[in-house]
């Protein structure tokens, strides 16, 4: 395979994972959001092909979620945890919007698994700015 073909067929994005075990310990998640737009974070769970919203950030927290229980380890086997952060841009001037999107700070931290705490950062590909009035950032973590 030539270098060119290798580049075309490259696969650099792999699923991010958090390791769990069969214990009854609680898995928790924390979302730290440093966002200047008006923001809401929502944690959802995919289980048996059904997406269910679990909890959301408070209005005053602007996207932050303190450590909150998701479920116990053994019940999360092969589940997906999805964190949506929706950022409204209307409190920013048009000049500030693009800069605000580029300066988004989002860190997701899981605890309770056999390996303890693990943090994930937002990646550019996870930021959806298709709509000019809002941005949707989705982080998907697979429980393995």
């Amino acid at each position, binding site marked *: 395979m030539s270098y060119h073909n290798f580049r*075309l*067929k*490259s*696969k*650099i*994005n*792999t*699923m991010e994972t958090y390791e769990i075990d069969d214990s009854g310990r609680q898995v928790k998640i924390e979302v*730290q*959001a*440093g*966002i*200047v*737009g*008006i*923001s*809401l974070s*929502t944690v*959802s769970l*995919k289980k048996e*092909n059904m*997406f269910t*919203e679990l909890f*959301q950030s408070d*209005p*005053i*927290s*602007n*996207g*932050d979620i303190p450590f909150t229980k998701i479920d116990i380890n053994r019940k999360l086997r092969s589940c*997906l945890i*999805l964190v*949506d952060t*929706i950022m*409204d841009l*209307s*409190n*920013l*001037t*048009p*000049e*500030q*919007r*693009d*800069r*605000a999107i580029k*300066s*988004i*700070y989002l*860190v997701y931290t899981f605890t309770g698994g056999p390996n303890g705490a693990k943090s994930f950062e937002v990646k550019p*590909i996870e930021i*959806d700015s*298709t*709509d*000019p*009035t*809002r941005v*949707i950032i989705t982080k*998907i973590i*697979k429980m393995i």
Partner: protein
Amino acid sequence: MYYALFYSAIIVGQQTNSVETPLYDLDVPNSPAFILLDESPSVIQRPNSTRAFGLSLLQDVTEDGVLNNFALEATPFWMIKDKDRNAYNFYGIDENKKQNYFSKLKLASISAAYVKDKDSIVNLSVGARATIFEIKRPEDIDAYVDTYNQIYSLLQKTQKYVTQYRNEVEGDPTPDQFDTTEEYTAALKAYRLARTKYVNQKLKENAANTGQTEKMQEIINRKPILAVDLAIAYNHRFSSNEFNDNDFGRFGVWSTVAFSLFPDKNASNYNSVNIYGFTRYLEDGSFNGLMPLNSDDRFNAFDLGIKGELEFDKLIIGYEYINRSGDLEGYRSAGNIRYQIYNDFYITGTFGNNFEEQDDLITLFGIQWGLNHPLQSLFVSK
């Protein structure tokens, strides 16, 4: 000037190899580094938008075909990611609506400029500016928080439809479903387009957006009661294209204090009486070092000025007086008027005298084009 730019933008835009450059990327020459070099079009100003000045720079470059003047301005705030940022402290309040009067300091900008003058002297200039103090109206803070809460409710509805769509299509694309990154990226793009359409349709059907986003835009553009701006800049000159042949050019520090009175306490309109105080110290060290001694152009000057302005819905009438003392003496006394004909289309006029002892009459009449729309962009040839 803006006519020329308008047409040149159209002509350039018709070329095939073009890249789209948002106008805000061009908003540079109102920086202190540029104003120090007398390249700024107005003396007392506190503009909401700096795009107009960016256009004058662009025109200078495109007309001459060479880069004579160039300026850059950067705001370090946007280059740093910080977990403590939120929509409250960005506006300048905390969760209890308490104002942080120094909150705008975080948006301080630094600038650098390059200007080559008629005598081939290269001027390099650096500067910084910030709003160091600001007092907002309590009514505006209340309106911001109320509208923030309305938008938060809108976000909750948006999330509901995001989850609904996710369940209808059995989830977001994930990397493990695709063989290549390219396939994954294409699927993600298609998913997001379809989701945006779905969510917006649902929001529309349920009349979820009742104008809160437009209201927020109006609120953040309201004038504060009091604002103090400070700028500082330093310029160094290089003569004869020799690096070692350089000397101090200019140093300036200036400040504007803007005070606004709103006669209508119920805020049903935003007619205001605006009073500006202006002070500037300028030191020019551009001594050529040649005989005769009267070629010594060095000076220092201290400007002190005031401007009164009546701002109505579409009309602004103002008068400014600036007294100059130090090695240079004189005054500027000018009245100006601006009328909004259409959304972002203004007629402006200025009449009075400028600092010079002779030929001091200034009469300016012009048009300002719409420069404030978020979707505006220029096409610049590659």
